[in-house]
C-alpha cells in the first residue's frame, strides 16, 4: 500500500474514522448551543474519556493509548470541523494538562491524578500566561516559596482555558527566579478563580483567571525539579502548536466543503454562482492553501514527540496554518453572502473561532521571532 502522510498507520486511519463519526453524531449537534451560551460541554469531554481520547499521547503502561503526535493532530483536526471551541477545551485538557503532566510527573503523582483525568472525571487545565506576561512568558512574576513540606504560591494567571470547570491545573511559578512546575487542585487553600472571561469565539470552551493568594500546595505536588519548568513548557508547546494548527485546518476543511456546495446550489443571474470567476478564486485559493497547510502540519507532526524536539517545524506549521483557517472561513462567508453572516449556518461561528489560532499558544509574531532565532542558530553555527 502506498504511504499515506495523513494516516501513516492503520490505527491512525481507524482513529480518524472513529473521531469523524463521533464528531458528526455527538459534537456537531451541540456546537451552536454551547457557542451561544459560552459554556463547555463537560459530559462530552467525559465521552471523549470513555473513547480513550483524553490520554492519546500517554504510553499504554500509563493508562493511555500510546499513540503519537500525529494521532493527537488527527483528533484536533476532526473535532474542529464541527466545534473548534470544544476542541480547544479538549486541547487544554488532553495536551496542556494530561500530556504535559504525564511527562513531568513521578509514579506517585501519576497514580493520584491520571485515573481521574484520563476518564474526564476531573477536568484539567494549565496556567502559564499572566496579566503582565504573555509572549514574554519568562517574565512571569508568580512565585513559589518553600514552607516546611509545602509550597506557598502567589500570583495571577489569566486566560486559563477550562478555568471555570477544572478540578486541577498544571501551574508555572518562579522559585528563586527559576521557573518551576506544580500541580494544584482547585480546592487548595488560597486558590480562587475569577469570573468567566467572555470572548469572541471558541465559546465552547471557557476561560478564567487563577488567583493564588498564599496558596498552600503540598510538597509532593512539585513536578520534576525546581527550575524544571522551562523544559516542561517548551516541550509541550510544540505538540500544542501542532494541535492548534490542526484546528485551523479543521476549520478550513469544513469551510471549503460548505463554500463548494453553496456555490453550486446558489443561483444568481440565471446560473450557479460557481460560474463566476470571482467565486472561483475564493474556492481555488481556499482549497490550495488548505492542502498546503495539511501537508505541512502532518509532515511536521511525524517529527514531534516527548523525545523529539522540533520547534522550527511546529512554529512554522502554526504560523502558516493559523491565517489559513481565518482566510478560508472569511472566503466561505463571502461566497455565502448574507447566509454566511447568519447564526443559522456554522460559518460565522467558525470565522469567529479561527482568529484565536493567530493568538493562543503563541502569537504569529512570537512564531516569527522564534523561527528567526532558531534558523539563525542553525545556519550561522
Amino acid at each position, binding site marked *: 500500500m502506498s504511504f499515506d502522510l495523513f494516516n501513516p498507520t492503520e*490505527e491512525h486511519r*481507524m*482513529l480518524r474514522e*472513529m473521531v469523524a463519526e463521533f464528531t458528526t453524531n455527538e459534537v456537531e449537534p451541540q456546537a451552536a448551543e454551547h457557542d451561544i451560551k459560552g459554556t463547555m460541554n463537560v459530559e462530552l469531554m467525559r465521552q471523549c474519556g470513555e*473513547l*480513550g481520547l483524553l490520554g492519546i499521547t500517554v504510553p499504554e503502561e500509563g493508562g493511555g*493509548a500510546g*499513540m503519537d503526535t500525529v494521532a493527537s493532530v488527527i483528533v484536533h483536526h476532526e473535532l474542529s470541523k464541527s466545534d473548534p471551541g470544544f476542541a480547544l477545551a479538549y486541547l487544554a485538557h488532553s495536551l496542556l494538562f494530561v500530556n504535559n503532566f504525564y511527562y513531568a510527573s513521578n509514579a506517585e503523582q501519576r497514580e493520584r491524578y491520571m485515573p481521574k483525568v484520563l476518564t474526564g472525571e476531573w477536568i484539567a487545565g494549565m496556567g502559564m500566561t499572566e496579566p503582565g506576561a504573555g509572549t514574554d512568558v519568562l517574565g512571569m512574576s508568580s512565585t513559589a516559596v518553600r514552607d516546611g513540606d509545602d509550597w506557598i504560591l502567589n500570583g495571577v494567571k489569566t486566560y486559563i482555558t477550562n478555568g471555570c470547570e477544572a478540578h486541577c491545573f498544571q501551574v508555572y511559578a518562579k522559585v528563586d527566579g527559576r521557573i518551576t512546575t506544580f500541580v494544584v487542585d482547585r480546592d487548595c487553600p488560597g486558590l480562587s478563580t475569577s469570573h468567566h472571561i467572555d470572548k469572541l469565539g471558541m465559546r465552547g470552551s471557557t476561560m478564567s483567571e487563577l488567583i493564588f493568594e498564599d496558596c498552600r500546595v503540598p510538597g509532593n505536588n512539585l513536578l520534576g525539579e525546581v527550575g524544571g519548568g522551562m523544559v516542561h513548557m517548551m516541550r509541550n508547546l510544540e505538540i500544542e502548536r501542532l494541535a492548534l494548527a490542526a484546528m485551523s485546518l479543521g476549520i478550513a476543511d469544513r469551510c471549503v466543503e460548505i463554500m463548494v456546495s453553496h456555490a453550486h446550489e446558489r443561483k444568481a443571474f440565471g446560473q450557479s454562482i460557481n460560474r463566476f470567476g470571482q467565486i472561483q478564486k475564493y474556492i481555488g485559493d481556499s482549497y490550495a492553501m488548505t492542502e498546503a497547510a495539511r501537508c505541512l502540519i502532518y509532515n511536521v507532526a511525524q517529527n514531534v514527540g516527548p523525545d523529539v524536539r522540533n520547534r522550527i517545524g511546529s512554529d512554522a506549521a502554526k504560523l502558516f496554518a493559523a491565517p489559513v483557517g481565518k482566510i478560508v472561513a472569511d472566503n466561505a462567508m463571502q461566497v455565502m453572502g448574507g447566509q454566511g453572516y447568519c447564526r443559522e449556518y456554522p460559518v460565522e461561528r467558525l470565522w469567529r473561532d479561527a482568529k484565536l489560532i493567530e493568538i493562543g499558544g503563541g502569537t504569529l509574531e512570537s512564531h516569527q521571532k522564534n523561527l528567526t532565532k532558531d534558523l539563525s542558530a542553525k545556519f550561522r553555527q
Partner: protein
Amino acid sequence: MKIGVCIKSTPDTSSRIQINPGGDDLSEAGVKWATSPYDMFAIEEAVQTKEATGGEVILFSASHQDTSKEVRKALALGPDSAVCIQDDGLAKADSLSFATSLAKAIEAEGCTLVFTGKRASDGNNIQVPAMVAELLGWPHVSFVTDFELDGESFKAVRAVGGGVEEVITGNLPVVITAERGLNSPRYAKLPMIVKAKKKPLATKSLADLGLTADDVAPIVTLSNYEPPAERGDCIILEGDAATTAKELVRRLREEAKVL
C-alpha cells in the same frame, strides 16, 4: 460458545456509484468501502451477547477483494478474531456463492450462533442469511429487533410490518438477522483500535475451505447495468394549502392520470 458475524464490505453510502464503460458491472474505481450499515447492528449484538454470556466472537467476510481494512475496523468494536474469505472465484459471485463460502467457514470454526445484517446495502437481495442457515441446516429469524439468550435457548422479536411483532423462541444453533433498533452500535474505543491490530485475522481461499470454483459458480449473473432514467423536473405548487391541494388533485387526475 462461538458467535459468528457475517459482514460485507459495501460502497460507503456517500460513494458515487458508477457503471463500467461496457455496462457489465459496477465500477470499483474510487469507491470507499465500509461495512454494510445493518451489519453494524449484528456486530454490536454479538459483542453484547458475548459480554453477557461469555464466549468469543468471530467475524466472517467473503469477497474477491481484500476486505481486511474494513474487517480490522470491525475488530476494534470488540470481536476476537476474523476469517476473511478472499478468492478470485468470487468475482462474479451471486448470493448462493457467498452463502456457500460463509457457511463452510462458519462450520469450520464451530459457531452455534450467527448474526448478520438484515440486508447488505449494495445488492439489497436479502438472501444470503437465509441461505447460510439452510446450508448449515439451522433455522433463522430475520429482521430481529430484540434478542435474548438464556443458555441454549433464545427469544427473538421480529417486526412483521403494520406495527405487529412476532416473538420466536427456539434453541441454538440459529442465524439471526439484525433490524435497525436491535441495539445502538458503539464507537470503537481508542484502546480497542490499538488492540485490533494484534487480533488474529485469517485470510482463506476457497481451496482452504475445501471448496472448488464449481461449488461457488453463480447461478444468477448480472450482465447489463444502466443508470436509472433522469428524474423529470419537479413542479412546486404555490399558494395556501387549500388551493395547492385542489390543484395537486387536478393535476394528478388530468395530467398524470393516476387518480
